[in-house]
């Protein structure tokens, strides 16, 4: 049996999304920029998708800029905003648990004369208003805090944090790539200037993302060229992917509430059983305020890459924040930010459920996990009550 439990990494394409995309990969291939009817049809499809994406987050379609990915949307938000508004300040505040696309985009601005402050989080991964307040300065022009974390699932109190940023005269960028489609988003309520989204995290295709750009917010484009996307993002539109993104947003709007409840029940039961059936394991992230399908564990005495490979042999696809799977050989910055030791972070396992997860898949995972953990603990020199493991 195969159990795909890595929805936070990427999601399978919803069959309905694929159906919507197919014509735009076949006969409807024209460039939306042209004026003849084939082009106009493609143009309409892009604009309809824009409306669907906007509707899901309570925005108007004129506030949506399509990009090639969530990473591009994050880069456009951070760099585009900073470059267009540098006269208003040169200081960027960013949370320690942001996705690398946001953290690295901020760091890249340091060479452009900006300074960056990284705000730490509490043990659950939350950015507190007090911590944010401390990081703010008169020179702060942008604050970047995600809506939810892709590793530990913690949902931030973005509305509160955005209000604080505004009190200091700074704009707010919210990376919602992992949250969109899983939990409701209303940009009016959040009151953010910029919000990033990604299609492949919500049953749409890879190769499409979007940036919400609140009316009146100015950014510099990163890509210059033919002036597509109102000049904010040149390059011929990826029509099939954009159409798929739009369809994915429509479906999410319809099923989100019911799905969230189903996943929460499935996840809570899974967490309860892992914690009761295995010794020396902790749940990372917030106990309640987390994405419905997310669980993140740390198993003491063992290492996550071994765990992931063993589970893969048993037909389970999951991921880890261990250094052994990262190209830099550093453990997850999110897990160390919430106070885990490096050794604990090495033993982390992220299990994320989604729309097509069946109870049998979770059961299969639960049936193989204890044996796998036990086997690796047998190989490990670290034992319960023993020495050396920190």
């Amino acid at each position, binding site marked *: 049996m195969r159990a795909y439990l890595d929805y936070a990494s990427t999601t399978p394409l919803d069959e309905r999304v694929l159906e919507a995309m197919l014509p735009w990969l076949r006969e409807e291939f024209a460039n939306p920029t042209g004026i003849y009817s084939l082009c106009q049809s493609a143009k309409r499809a892009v604009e309809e998708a824009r409306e669907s994406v906007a509707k899901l987050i309570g925005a108007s379609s004129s506030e949506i800029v399509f990009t090639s990915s969530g990473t591009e949307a994050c880069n456009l938000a951070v760099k585009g905003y900073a470059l267009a508004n540098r006269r208003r300040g040169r200081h960027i505040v960013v949370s320690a648990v942001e996705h690398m696309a946001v953290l690295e985009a901020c760091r890249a601005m340091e060479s452009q004369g900006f300074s960056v402050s990284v705000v730490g989080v509490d043990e659950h991964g939350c950015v507190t208003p007090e911590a944010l307040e401390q990081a703010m300065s008169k020179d702060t022009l942008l604050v970047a805090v995600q809506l939810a974390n892709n590793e530990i699932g913690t949902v931030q109190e973005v509305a509160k944090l955005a209000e604080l940023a505004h009190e200091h005269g700074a704009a707010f960028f919210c990376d919602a790539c992992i949250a969109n489609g899983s939990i409701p988003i209303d940009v009016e309520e959040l009151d953010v200037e910029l919000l990033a989204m990604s299609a492949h995290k919500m049953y749409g295709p890879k190769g499409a993302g979007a940036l919400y750009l609140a009316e009146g917010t100015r950014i510099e484009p990163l890509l210059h060229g033919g002036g597509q996307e109102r000049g904010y993002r040149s390059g011929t539109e990826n029509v099939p992917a954009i159409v798929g993104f739009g369809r994915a947003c429509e479906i999410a709007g319809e099923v989100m509430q019911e799905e969230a409840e189903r996943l929460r029940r499935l996840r809570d039961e899974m967490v309860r059983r892992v914690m009761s059936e295995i010794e020396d394991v902790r749940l990372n992230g917030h106990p309640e305020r987390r994405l419905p399908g997310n669980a993140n564990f740390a198993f003491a*005495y*063992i*290492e996550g*890459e*071994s765990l992931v*490979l*063993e589970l893969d*042999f048993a037909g389970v696809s999951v991921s880890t924040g*261990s*250094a*052994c*799977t990262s*190209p830099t*050989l550093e*453990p997850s910055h999110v897990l160390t930010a919430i106070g885990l*030791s*490096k*050794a604990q972070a*090495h033993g982390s396992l992220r299990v994320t459920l989604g729309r097509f997860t069946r109870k049998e898949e979770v059961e299969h995972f639960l049936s193989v996990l204890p044996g796998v953990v036990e086997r690796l603990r*047998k*190989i*490990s*020199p*670290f034992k319960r009550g023993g020495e*050396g*493991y*920190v």
Partner: protein
Amino acid sequence: MYSEILLEHFRNPRNMGRMENPDGVGKVGNPACGDVMHIYIKVGKNSSGEEIIEDIKFETFGCAAAIGTSSMVTELAKGKTLEEAAKISKEDVAEAVGGLPPIKMHCSLLATKGLRKAIEDYRRKKGDAGAGGEDSQHTQEG
């Protein structure tokens, strides 16, 4: 990413576990870095009277490459003279497991380091004990 040989050793590690009363122990790595290896050896003699690794065991905290190379180094070392075993290089281990991704080469380095440390530990202990033994003989003679 990993060769068949390495994965086979990862799934069915040879000589795995703790050893009771080992003659030498090599502990290398650091949990913060993600890899820790303990190598235990028992030393015996071959027919020509040379010291050999009669038995060897390992315990490893780490990735599949760390576990697989630990297993392989124990296989390569078993039955070899201490001199030969101490000469096993990280390239020897990497080659024996059918190659390693470049970023995982340090794992095979750790395995050979652990083995060398266990041999050093044995020699140090024996050196101390040997010195004591000679002394006692002198006393008897005197």
